[in-house]
């Protein structure tokens, strides 16, 4: 029997907003698919573009970057820097054969667990349509 394709998504969540939202989604018993593997970072500004590329290189089907809303960053400007970095990653991804849809940047405040759950559901759905990553299995 062939295994059914289940997307694997790495989610980088900032400590102050999006991770809190994920936490609240859990304690509020909101349902979202278990395809998301969360990596907590102190701020989305900590997310080096190479983290995203490495995630794909190791076989992730999608990457979600979630942080505080613009002007709401706990460290003032961290999320602005991330927004800029994700922009050029989106630029370079199609060139190396990765669909830009596989990377998603979202602002999720600590009080928005429903948004967190919704985005997880949407992303899993999108990635199911898109199919597995061309580098599934990873390159080591």
């Amino acid at each position, binding site marked *: 029997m062939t295994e059914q394709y289940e997307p694997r998504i790495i989610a980088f969540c900032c400590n102050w907003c999006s991770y809190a939202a994920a936490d609240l989604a859990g304690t509020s018993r909101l349902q979202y698919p278990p395809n998301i593997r969360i990596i907590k970072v102190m701020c989305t500004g900590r997310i080096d573009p190479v983290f995203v590329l490495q995630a794909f290189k190791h076989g992730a089907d999608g990457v979600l970057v979630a942080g505080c809303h613009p002007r709401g960053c706990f460290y003032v400007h961290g999320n602005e820097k991330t927004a800029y970095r994700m922009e050029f990653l989106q630029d370079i991804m199609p060139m190396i054969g*990765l669909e830009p849809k596989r990377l998603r940047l979202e602002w999720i405040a600590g009080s928005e667990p429903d948004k967190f759950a919704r985005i997880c559901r949407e992303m899993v759905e999108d990635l199911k349509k898109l199919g597995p990553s061309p580098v599934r299995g990873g390159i080591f």
Partner: protein
Amino acid sequence: MAGLDELIEETGAHDCVECGKCTSVCPVARINPKFAPRLIVLRVLEGVSDSLSKDKDIWSCITCEMCNDMCPYEVNYSGFILGLRTRAIKAGNLPDCSQSGAVHTYQRLMTSGVKQNRLKWVTPEMKIKERGDVFYFTGCAVHLGALFSDKAGELKNTPANYVRILNAAGIEPVVSNDEVCCGHDLLWAGDEDSMLKLMDKNVEVIRKSGAKTVVFSCPECLRTFEIDYQDFLGDFDFELVHMSEFLLDLIDKGKLSFDSNGGKITYHDSCRLGRHLGIYDPPRDLISALGMELIEMQNNKEKAGCCGVNAFANCGEVSQKLQLDRLLEATATGADEMLTFCPKCVIHFNCLLKSPKLPVPHEKVKILVREFGNVLAEHLQKKGDR
């Protein structure tokens, strides 16, 4: 992989008489007195047991080949360093790559054989072919332009500009979507295995196109094909030419002409094109053909300074000082622009030029660092104009 003894044999490291001439010209040693090419060789020759797994100096080298040029016994220091690096990463001695290795990571992704979408820059008016005599190997300029869009975003246009120039001369080059990175950066960061995978793909793509001539604008790609690929695969049955030589030939045949309103230009010899491959005059002749005045920097040709970074495997205080030295030299010529063929040089110089941490006032380094092709395309004369 062969042992260290073989590497010592191949590169002639045994012949080192420790005269220290290499150190006297080494740009890294000038700034960091603890570094010396000769000492790296000495440590290996003496068999210092942990030198390979711990020696960080092998990553400080910027492989500019000043030492090779100076050595009276023709020791191939850069080849020696390259050999050490491939062995060092197997021993757990890794480089501290700049950009945390983002460049190397996307290049490794290319080894997987993913279907790329590389030719986004091709517009309908450009004439390119799938099979033909002339293959234009575009290199990573577009990728680097995207990755360093704040510093050298202009690089995104480089391949498009070269195609326009070639089209103007009546040449329809083969440009392939299946071309991958040449593997230069991975090789010099010690990852020979990934480079070999990329090499096989590239050679296959070129063979399939039926090309007799492969034209390169990037000096690093040309070096990798000319020296490293042919080391592994033997001589190719297709010709490898640098863009400067190829365009000069077209100008001589009267197929191509440029027109500019004068202007002062200085030219930076990148290490790969200059010392590694010995191509010094064609770019200079191109500047004359452009109708611009070339003003040489104090150190030029074999003695040209360096952009300070090698394969994104090192960047730091030494790199910054080397970049500043070169930019000051370029400013002293009074030229408006410094041209170079190497996209990496363009990135590294602009990185310092546009940095808020520039150690001198911005007025002191008033020079634009640009890729050659982007300037050529601005002065291209269309057939109708002639």
